[in-house]
């Protein structure tokens, strides 16, 4: 085995280098983009939480700051911080430009 030998340089015929990794739009990339931003978290029950996304984990457990709870368009509660258990989450939507 001789894995250390690099392939012979051949600048003329080698394919162009792959383009730099652009934003692939994956869920992970989206989440990296929205941490620290205002978001709307809707639960499967239809209740909305609007606030600043502090952080989240692989279960979609979410920590929100300056949270407002909305039910049918009415603000029903305010929380300084809120932990939302991920299994209840329907979606996380950006509420300001990412």
């Amino acid at each position: 085995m001789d894995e250390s030998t690099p392939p012979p340089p051949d600048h003329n015929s080698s394919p162009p280098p792959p383009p730099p990794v652009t934003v692939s739009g994956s869920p992970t990339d989206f989440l990296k983009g929205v941490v620290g931003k205002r978001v709307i978290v809707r639960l499967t029950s239809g209740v909305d939480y609007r606030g600043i996304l502090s952080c989240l984990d692989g279960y979609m457990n979410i920590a929100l700051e300056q949270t407002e709870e909305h039910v049918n368009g009415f603000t029903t509660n305010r929380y300084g911080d809120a932990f939302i258990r991920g299994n209840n989450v329907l979606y996380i939507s950006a509420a300001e430009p990412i």
Partner: protein
Amino acid sequence: MASQILPLELIDRCIGSRIWVIMKSDREFTGTLLGFDDFVNMVLEDVTEYETTPQGRKKTQLSQTLLNGNNICMLIPGSAGPDS
């Protein structure tokens, strides 16, 4: 060959296109698919949420949105959704 193409490969080909997402409940979404993962959590852009309630159908416009794959039932690629 039982299947030449995996279901998620088909969805992968829809990235950049409009897609119609039907949830297990009376809820549907349309949007431009930006990406998804192995759980079929999906990132959509220019999203419309359709909620069917006894009072009628409610529409909500959303910008970039991460949809939890847990509650997704069906995906219809290239569709403008229930209004089409």
